[in-house]
């Protein structure tokens, strides 16, 4: 972003090929930005602002940002995987509270991470906004007039021809116009400039980063995301209480979530039956009937892994699935309970685990703790294990408990575990579909009737994502422009040759000088050579000028 400085004339012609401010702290002379001034608070603030918006500071902040992101990828994060955070607490009971205190389990929401990126964005804004103003002026400016001594430009050539001054200037003017240069004609010379898009792209890139931040802020304020488990034949309507978990932005009115609802009619999963990845899932498909609001006509849809359902600004994603065995329990008093309870899969064979709680059973409360094996075979020790995720040979392995489920003492209990400390085992059994376990002493019976499937859905609204998408599209465009477009200036001057001897009469000296920022795109030498060749074709060389090689090396700057 440094200045394009070249050892050319005193004119402004050759300087300022971009709008970058002069980096006063790195003029290449070892000068540093000074110590904090003591003169006034205002001077100190200006100094601090300058320091913050300098490229050097921005670079350091950029690296700090990269560094700050590292722990977020190494430590388990509450946002993405709270279970692993809990495991970390178990494994490292002394270290974990300390890490928690410094935000290590929520790196990307921690104050220090926010400090780095907010400082970076302030620095960015402080640099880019003034530059945008300068660039806006530069875009409307005319190309600077030709420097006195074109020979001192990094690209230069000259020759003598027989045409008159006027026709050379006219031809050069036309040629450069055709090449879509911005061209100004003066007496005996033409000044041309091209490639403002480079800086436009550069600024678009950086400005769109600011817009991305804005979009993310909107999402954080107005977005929400929740998950819910739904069994086949059951429904969900979008109210805060219906979610298993719901994270909502600070500005979300939880009473006014999008009014849609859906019912999971059925769920299909297919699996690889052969090959190296036998047992891997092939497809998941949740067939739903849904309504965008209560008055709308119900319609059907399939929600699959890469195809969420959209309704009223919210998207419904399929994120998980499992089995819910159906038990028919008859208690000692003859009451019948039909329970379809989701069991949670333990592994990729969908060996699933869960509990059924019957607090209303008489004479004692009943509980079932067990496993659901979709495709059960017996292992060498004659114990049933699950070998395939599809329900080819479903069985349940259960233990039935009687006693106090501990639900009445106000302590919150997980629906997936059972506290058997105040219970006794009545019996255990392996049941295939339709089989019944008769409990001893007339305590009743348990029948494994069959199973349903369940699916978990994530429902989220992210109002800022449209803004972010547009911003990143502009960002890529800006990036490509800033890396591919070349900013350059060309000057053509024609002068009548001073008459020293008779042969000089009617001769015109043509000079062409060029200046560019060297960059990844390169190729200015080709462009320059083409222009020269074109003009030399129209105005043939009668005499090359001595000393045309006297070119001062260009001080090269990149941006």
């Amino acid at each position, binding site marked *: 972003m440094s200045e394009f400085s070249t050892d050319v004339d005193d004119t402004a012609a050759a300087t300022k090929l971009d709008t970058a401010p002069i980096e006063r702290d790195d003029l290449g002379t070892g000068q540093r930005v000074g110590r904090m001034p003591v003169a006034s608070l205002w001077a100190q603030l200006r100094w601090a602002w300058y320091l913050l918006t300098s*490229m050097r500071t921005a670079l350091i902040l950029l690296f700090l940002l990269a560094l700050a992101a590292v722990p977020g990828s190494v430590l388990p994060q509450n946002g993405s995987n709270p279970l692993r955070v809990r495991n970390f607490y178990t494994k490292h009971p002394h270290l974990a509270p300390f890490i928690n205190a410094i935000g290590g389990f929520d790196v990307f929401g921690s104050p220090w991470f926010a400090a780095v990126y907010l400082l970076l964005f302030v620095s960015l804004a402080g640099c880019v906004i003034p530059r945008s103003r300068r660039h806006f002026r530069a875009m409307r400016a005319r190309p600077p007039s030709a420097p006195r001594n074109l020979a001192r430009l990094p690209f230069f*050539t000259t020759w003598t021809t027989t045409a008159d001054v006027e026709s050379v200037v006219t031809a050069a003017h036309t040629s450069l116009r055709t090449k879509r240069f911005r061209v100004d004609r003066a007496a005996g010379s033409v000044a041309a400039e091209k490639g403002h898009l480079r800086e436009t792209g550069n600024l678009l890139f950086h400005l769109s980063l600011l817009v991305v931040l804005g979009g993310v802020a909107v999402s954080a304020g107005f977005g929400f995301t929740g998950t819910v488990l739904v069994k086949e034949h059951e429904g969900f309507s979008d109210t805060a209480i219906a979610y298993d978990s719901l994270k909502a932005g600070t500005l979300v009115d939880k009473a006014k979530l999008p009014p849609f609802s859906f019912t999971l009619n059925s769920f299909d999963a297919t699996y690889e039956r052969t090959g190296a*990845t036998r047992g891997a*899932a092939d497809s998941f498909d949740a067939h739903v009937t849904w309504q965008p609001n209560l008055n709308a006509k119900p319609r059907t849809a399939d929600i699959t*892994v890469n195809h969420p359902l959209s309704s009223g600004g919210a998207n419904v994603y399929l994120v998980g699935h499992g089995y819910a065995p159906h038990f028919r329990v008859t208690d000692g008093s003859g009451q019948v309970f039909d329970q379809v309870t989701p069991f949670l899969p333990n592994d990729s064979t969908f060996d699933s685990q869960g509990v059924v709680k019957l607090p209303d059973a008489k004479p004692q409360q009943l509980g079932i703790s067990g496993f659901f094996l979709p495709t059960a075979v017996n292992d060498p020790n004659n114990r049933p294990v699950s070998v395939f995720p599809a329900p080819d040979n479903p069985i349940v392995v259960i233990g039935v408990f009687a006693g106090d489920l501990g639900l009445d003492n106000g302590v919150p209990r997980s629906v997936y575990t059972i506290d058997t400390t105040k219970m006794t085992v009545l019996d255990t059994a392996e049941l295939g579909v339709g089989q019944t376990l008769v409990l001893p002493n007339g305590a009743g019976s348990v029948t494994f009737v069959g199973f349903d499937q369940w699916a978990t859905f994530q429902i989220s609204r992210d109002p800022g994502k449209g803004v972010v998408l547009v911003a990143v599209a502009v960002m*890529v465009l800006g990036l490509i422009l800033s890396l591919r477009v070349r900013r350059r200036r060309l000057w053509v001057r024609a002068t009548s040759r001073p008459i020293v001897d008779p042969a000089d009469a009617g001769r015109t000296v043509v000079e062409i000088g060029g200046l560019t920022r*060297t960059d*990844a795109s390169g190729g200015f030498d080709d462009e320059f050579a083409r222009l020269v060749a074109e003009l030399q074709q129209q105005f043939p*060389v009668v005499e090359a000028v001595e000393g045309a090689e006297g070119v001062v090396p*260009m001080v090269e700057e990149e941006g």
Partner: protein
Amino acid sequence: MDVNIGLARLSNDLIAGGIAAYSLAFLGYAVDAAFGNHASRVSPTALRVSKTIAADVRVPVLVGGSTGHDRPAGAAAPAMSSTPPADRYSFVASRVGKVSVALTVVGWLLHLGAIVSRGVAVHRLPWGNMYEFTLALAFTAVTAFLVIMARQPARYLGVFVMAPVVLALGIAVLVLYVAPAPLVPALHSYWLAIHVTAAIIASGVFTVATAATFMFLVADRYAVAQAAGRPVRFSALARIMPSPEVLDRTAYRAYAFAFPIWTFAVIAGAIWAEYAWGHYWQWDPKETWAFITWVIYAGYLHARATAGWRGRNAAYIALLGFVTILFNFFVVNIFITGVHSYAGV
């Protein structure tokens, strides 16, 4: 659909052949580098050299009536001595270098065949796991190298490109290999083609750029030491290289080419994540490291334009960028679990 076993085997054979050709090419490039006459080898592509060098040492591009296109390279390239081949070792070595280029092309064709046959065997784009991804990545790196060689004399890069390519393919075949199989449902999306292809192309070009950066550091050290009259290690290596400026520029062009593609890959991944997971960004370890890579290379592009950072410092930053890519690929894929885990071994 079922995997075509015959084609899958063919793919394995082709990649073995490709590795053999690349290995021989690597040896050839090494011989060429060690014994070749490097002044003479630039002349067949005089025009390109003259322009590259001219731009770097600021020799006037055009003088008098010349348009510069017909100028011999030697005149414009003081950095390259134009002495004729000194002895027959160097002559043979240069021949070996040319054969190496041919071997690289042969290896590239076999490599291409391996990727295509694997893709046909599994009826999908063959970049669904680390093995396939590594094959594709190495393929892009070699492609980028061949493209650069077609545009400018860059045989000197051969050693530094072929070494990581052969290494990566060796690891792919010996460690990462998985039998061909269909993909898990999460990968059934055309975004796989967009996101992963962009990531592969960017990483492949970053690999070649890294080779050039590495050579820049060696050449620069050599140039500095030579200017100070100090003896240098690896001088034989440095002697064959073009000027640090040329290397720096070659590297920069490659980075500037790959960076927008990497940006796009990350964005395409975010769009896909939005469809698949319901969040375009959730700081999954793989996402985080892709972001870190992006930040580091953005830092490189800025550093290159900031006084006090350009040159060696910028080069170190670029090398750090590649380290983050490697970390993301090997460490994050294998040791850190996240939502990208299915892309694993």
